[in-house]
């Protein structure tokens, strides 16, 4: 409910929660792009010079 007693929709509450949007906005690219990518590079076998 807002100050005028009108019901605020769940979507609007979600949009108004900047802190939560901030948190999710940092977590998704950190996991899907950065951490996943770092894990793949870290697990790549090192090339051997000798056959």
């Amino acid at each position, binding site marked *: 409910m807002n100050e005028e007693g009108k019901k605020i929709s769940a979507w609007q509450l979600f949009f108004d929660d900047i802190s939560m*949007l901030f948190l999710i906005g940092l977590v998704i690219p950190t996991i*899907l*792009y950065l951490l996943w*990518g770092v894990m793949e590079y870290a697990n790549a076998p090192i090339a051997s010079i000798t056959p």
Partner: protein
Amino acid sequence: MAANALEFRTCPITGKKVYATAQNLIWANAVTAVVFILVGGLAALLVLLTRWPAVHLLSPDLFYRILTLHPIAALVAWIIFFEVAGLYFGCTVLLNSRIAAPKVAWLAYFLMLVGAALVAVEILIGNADVMFTSYIPLQASPLYYLGVILFAVGALVACGIFFGTLAIAKAEKTYEGSLPLVTFGLSAAAIIAVWTLASGAIIYIPTFLWSLGVIKNIDAAMYRLIFWGFGHASQQINVTAMVSVWYLLGVLTVGLKPVNEKVCRSAFVLYIFFINLASEHHLLTDPTLSPAHKIANTSYFIYMAALASMIHALAIPMAVEVAQRKKGYTKGIFEWLTKAPWGEPGFPALVFSLFIFGFIGGITGIVNGTEQLSIKSHNTWAMTGHFHGTVVGGTTLAFMGLTYYLIPLVFRREIIGKKWATAQPYIYGIGLIIFTLSMIAAGTLGVPRRHWDITFADSIIPFSFDPTAILLVTLTALGGLTAIVGGAIYVGVAVLSVFFGRKLAPNEAKLI
């Protein structure tokens, strides 16, 4: 700068409070942005006149130096200084609020200024011929990396000021209900900026230590992964800020009101969650990363951000049409469009920005972002044409259009040369359409990006491009020169108006 933190005036147009501290900060950041677009534009002219085989102006050393300076000045400094001005405008003027911690905001400004100046000087004196990407093992001087870090830290602090001001505005109830859509969009841009700048810090701090010799080795592949978390994501800040400016230009020119604001907000949320995954596009030709990582990021999640762009691309013209029809322009299908305010700079800037971003920059980004096609277009001019469509035709043109309204609204000066200001978006927009389309077409014929001499005059094995490619390169040069004329008009009008424009009386409600 020394203004009282609570000193304000009431805007005669919007009726909102404009605090002197916020106004000074907006002024400083916007003016600095214009200085950097002048530097970036001059560098663009030199690069263009070298890549055009008919002129081939600079020596190879100087070409790569100026090619490093151009994006630093035009892509990073101009756009981020302007975005900081936009963030402060969005959280203070639009919310009727004072700014949080003005002294810290000035510290952020000076950190950005010193950082950008340091980077530019290091490039110009030849200590950083590493191009924008500064890929390992290319090494610049420690001062170059330090400059980038100072700039990024300053921008990060500016984002903190923005969020702090949002909290103050909410606590002091300076606005009712939800954040206005433009401020909400700018909040999305600031969230994207925090992740971007954090990625920059993660990679640039060890690279700085590597340049000092403290760290012996940095993995080149790891560098590329994290660098693009900064390098490409910084363009996503631009996209999100640009869309927010589109809505603002719509309000200022036709009184736009979105038909369904929740849909527009949903699109911004999709940006927040998914747009930064587009960094993966730069790694599609990297053999180490698995197809799962590449496809998940670029062929699944990023389409959520593409969907968001399509929502905005439909929502804005629709809202313009509704606003115009409400004014009585209801004859036929297109009277709302023909009677639109084409004679004031904001509207053509909005339309050209939307068209160039949507139909040239955005679409080619989606095409080039697929793994199979990326292999063909990677490192060709097709990529360069794509991102000039997004950041120059899209973001820069939108910011230019907004400048003509910020000058009377916030800086209280009358625009000098209104006819030039009105012609400017047309000249700049048409020049960029020719420039980007020719560049993309030349790239599909194999013309490489970042190359000093595409005639390969000194090559042991001779090679010549198809004459069509050379024709397209010439068209690119002509389009680019037209856009540079448009850019020069913008700088001229903005500088003259800000410093010499007639001061508007406190109660003078004049926009443009």
